[in-house]
């Protein structure tokens, strides 16, 4: 179990990193979405997942019996939503970049915000 999921997390994250290192903005965005999926799975694997019972207290009981780790799940739940928000914000940024420069290449987008020439301070002119 452990080895399977560890390998899956590693493969997903490696693929995500590979995509992020691209200079295509959409690919970077998709890579980040993939990375957050991988991170969620990582958190889930790191929590106690030996039990397949959902962490829901059975009717009539007042304590949780044998069940999966609820804490990790609460963490991941918010992480999924935040990751989603991040992806969507990135999507709008990419869209703006495309509208402004007509390019999806990070180098072009970067070039538009560089000042014309780096000015060297000349002590003679104070």
């Amino acid at each position, binding site marked *: 179990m452990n080895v399977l999921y560890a390998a899956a997390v590693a493969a997903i994250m490696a693929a995500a990193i590979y995509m992020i290192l691209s200079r295509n903005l959409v690919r970077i965005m998709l890579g980040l979405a993939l990375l957050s999926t991988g991170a969620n799975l990582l958190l889930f694997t790191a929590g106690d997942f030996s039990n397949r019972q*959902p962490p829901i207290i059975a009717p009539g009981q007042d304590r949780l019996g044998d069940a999966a780790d609820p804490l990790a799940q609460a963490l991941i739940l918010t992480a999924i939503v935040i990751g989603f928000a991040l992806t969507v914000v990135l999507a709008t940024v990419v869209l703006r970049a495309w509208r402004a420069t007509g390019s999806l290449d990070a180098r072009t987008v970067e070039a538009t915000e560089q000042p014309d020439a780096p000015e060297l301070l000349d002590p003679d002119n104070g």
Partner: protein
Amino acid sequence: MLLILFVALVGSCIVPLVARIMGKGAGLVVALFPFGLLGAFIALAPVIERGWVRSESWRWAPSLGLDVTLRLDGFSFLFCLLITAIGGLVTIYSGGYLTNRSRPDRSRFLTLILLFMTAMLGSVLADNMLVLIVFWEATSVLSFLLIGFDGRSARARRAAIMALQVTAGGGLALVAATVMIGHVLGSYSLSGAIDRAPEILASPLAAPIIIGILIAAFTKSAQFPFHFWLPNAMQAPTPASSYLHSATMVKLGIYLLARFEPLVAGIWWGRTVLITVACITMLIAATQALRAESFKAALAYSTIASLGILVLLVGLDGPAATVAMIGFLLAHALYKAALFFCAGSVLHSTGLGSLRALGGLRKSLPLTALACTGASLSMAGIPPFLGFISKEFLFEAQLESSWELIPLAIAVLVNAVMVGVAAVITLKPFFLKADHPIEIEHPESLSVAVPPLLLSLAGLVISLEPDWITRVAIRPAVAAVYRQPVKVDVAVWHGLTPMLALSAVVVAIGFVIVRYWRPIHLRLRRQGGFERFGIERMWERLLRTLLRASAALTRLVEHGDLRRYLATTIGVIAALVIATWWRIGAAPRIVIGDRPMLGDILVTLTGVAGALAAARAKNLLTAMVAVGLTGFAVAITFMTNGAPDLAITQFAVEALIVVLLTALLLIVPLSVKSTRSGSQRRTDGIIAASFGMVMFVTLLDMAAVQNATPAADWFGQMSYIAGQGHNVVNVILVDFRGFDTLGETAVIAIAALLAGSLLGVRPGKRDGDDAGQPVHYSFAAASGPLFVLLLVASIVILWRGHDQPGGGFVGGLAAALAFAILSLARGVRSAERTLRAQPSTLVGAGLVLAIVSGLPGMMGGQAFMTQLWTEPYGWVPKLSTTISFDLGVYMVVVGAVLAFLFGLQREAAR
């Protein structure tokens, strides 16, 4: 003293405003203020006279060891008298000197002068070294502002920056020394540090501390190799040069050295460094003083030489050296300030600065000529002026000290040059004939003539009538520096002594220098080596190299390529982790665990396949679908492993991502040519693979110490009892960790705001032009029922979330999905009409609702976000504030997603 300092600070800001209202005579009125402070100090004279020390303390930031502790002893007292008295005269002089400036300019100048006075007072009164540093750096900054007072002149700006770089840089050395002293002694008290000098000397930090103090003092007092800023500082208006760059500020370094003499002398090389640096400084400055062309430059170099003499006197041992140091400090402050005033008057009246061009001004500037003569006689050390007495002290100190004859010979030579320079700067402008007739622009006024006259007169009066000043200032100052009472005998005639003989030698050589000044001067001027090999040139080259290096470094580090930034970051992280494993040398713990079921394997492989396909995909749409595939596989994994909440959230998110990103992918080109070269791809592949490997090993190791956390157990135990909910995940989110969830919700709300600004959603500016792309009729027909179904489902999910899988996040996502279907099928406008509200309104209302849900608990006297419950019997369901909280989250999520969805789809339709 705290009061005096406070009054000085406030007064410096307010009093100079007089110069905005008054024209002429403003200087006189403003001068009443420093003279008032002088009076306040003189009132303290009886304390000092008895050899007492007065301390005051005000707790400022005790946790930092930062108390404003002031300490007035004889040495500080002498400085205070000089600072306030000369400050007053400078103020009067400025009033007459700055006549060709506007009133705001004059007011600004006087403010800076008085603020500088306050900073000086603070520097010499401070006992806490951190406070000393604050005032010390304040004097550097004010010096910068005064040198660069004429901000339109490039030379003034350059000189100001140079002075700031050198003196404030030296201040940093003082900061370092102070921190080390605080580290060694556990206290920042200046007097304490001197008392406990043996402790500092015994510590390994002794050498760095002393070096820091020396650098601070040498930069401030313009000693070799930091002397070059002072001649450039002559760009300042002359009153400022007179006050800062001869009489007071440059003496701060001497002040520091004299205070720390027990420490500096305690290390074997301490005195040697002091005397060597002083001698080099004196020789360079004396040569340059003969070489200087302008009146002010000659004075500036002679000031450096005088500072060298003072450093030499600090370096010499024996009580006579201390007496000589105090005597010379006083004499020099008086005559040099006066000479600067005279130089300023000449410059002001004639507009000429060069000594060679000047001449015959005796008739047009009679009072100035008189003052200059008096001050020069003092500088030359001609009896009965104070300069003579201080020179006698100097030679006495040298003869008594245990040092070789070389410093003595240098001192004789330098003093002879001083005689020569003093004679030249008096005779040439005032008494010798000018080569060309000189036009007088401004006649001499009393306010510029009286201050130098008073100072010259003081030099005469003190030597003839030395009782009072010896009693209240010189003797206590000597006692404070030497740290035990010393007999001080200030008198012009001591009988026939070796010192008198040396004085005679000095005057004789001085006469020769005066006689042959012109050939010496011209010969020195022809030597180009002074400029070419000057420290100033080296300093500028150093600065330029520094700038060039930093520019190159910036270009190297800030290359602007996103890929390289990320590759560096990720690669370094992976390398660091691997290096740490290597260093620790422990193998990761691997527990294989139970065998996975076939279903698990298949689902996981699907996810991995999706990720790999996404990475390899040429087409962006393919990549998106592949990423979605991984997402769904992970969702299924969640579901089969006991996390239904996560599963439905992930499903909803994946569905929404498809809808939202499709809107984006409709606009941008789907297949673009690769942005990486083949070798770059390989590098990236290696980085990605090593990162994946690090994650793999880490995760295996983490899983090996698998144990249920106590927190997770506690939540399981208390969820129903304290939170009244069966779904533990939801109870954690809305109740136990509700405050965190509120934060997350706020993040989503902020993202929605971002969408509003990035996608330019303007309320009410849209026309009904967007029918959207035609869709298949079956989808169009099904969209209505689907919308209703999803909306109802979302509310059910929201409602039952507390006990069953569900909750605000998932409910919100499902509702957003409902609207997404509607807008896909019927266009954005139709979906917006159905929503009836702006998405951002929904976000705001949701956030308010979530926050308000925490208030009832607070009103009940408990912490914010303490949820309350009522569980009535019968058919009424249990009610609680968590419902309101979850509803708030729901609304925020719906609003945020729809803000993006509508914005993106509109943008796509453009």
